[in-house]
């Protein structure tokens, strides 16, 4: 990976994510392409109206696994720098839950690495999401015992 500037890598935060600051950390004169992904709390899930989300994190393992995912991306794709920050705690609708940014000379590698990082972050990190619905009840996403949620949820990777 020519010209690798290993930016921050991975961070967990209980505070609001500042995408401008994170984006600025990836600027580099040979970076012709910057692909970013932002995951936000949306107002619906599986046909139900969502009021807020709680992200619970196992910090030690999430940090180590997050750094591993970003390092894998730097290793597999021809990119210059990559970073991911994941939020914890209680988030209202519209708040940013996760940010991923990848700088590269060319756009193909930037897109591929950005998507790799968010896919693996969602699949592997010990982070759990409790949805509180408009009706007041709540549930841990992907933890239903009947497995119904896995089958219908396009946005959540139930697969271990």
């Amino acid at each position, binding site marked *: 990976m020519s010209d690798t500037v290993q930016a921050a890598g991975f961070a967990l935060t209980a505070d609001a994510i500042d995408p401008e600051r994170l984006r600025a950390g990836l600027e580099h004169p040979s970076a012709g392409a910057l692909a970013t992904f932002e*995951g936000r709390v949306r107002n619906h899930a599986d046909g139900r109206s969502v009021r807020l989300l709680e*992200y*619970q994190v*196992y910090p*030690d*393992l*999430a940090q*180590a*696994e997050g750094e591993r995912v970003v390092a894998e991306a730097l290793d597999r794709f021809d990119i210059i720098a990559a970073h991911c920050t*994941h939020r914890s705690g209680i988030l209202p609708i519209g708040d940013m*839950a*996760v940010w991923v940014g990848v700088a590269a000379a060319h756009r193909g590698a930037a897109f591929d690495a950005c998507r790799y990082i*968010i896919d693996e*972050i*969602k*699949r*592997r*990190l*010990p*982070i*759990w*999401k*409790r949805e509180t619905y408009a009706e007041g009840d709540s549930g*841990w*996403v*992907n*933890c239903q*015992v009947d497995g119904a949620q*896995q089958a219908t949820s396009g946005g*959540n*990777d*139930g697969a*271990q």
Partner: protein
Amino acid sequence: MTEPAGPREVRVSYFALLRDEAGCDEERVVTASATAGELYAELSDRYRFSLPPERLRVAVNAGFADWETALADGDLVVFIPPVAGG
């Protein structure tokens, strides 16, 4: 049983649905279970965990581990329910 000897004391942290079902974040457990898998079976009996072990992973001392991992005094054991980050 990979170790014949008597009980050991481990720490167990709970997250998400398991935390709700155990009713605590973390506890010290004195156990005769020799492996992580045996410990989950033991705690499932105690707390009536709704998730079967095949839907979980397990971490020992902050690294992903096998269910067959032998437990030692002082280990930190975390059962990992299906994740949903992002």
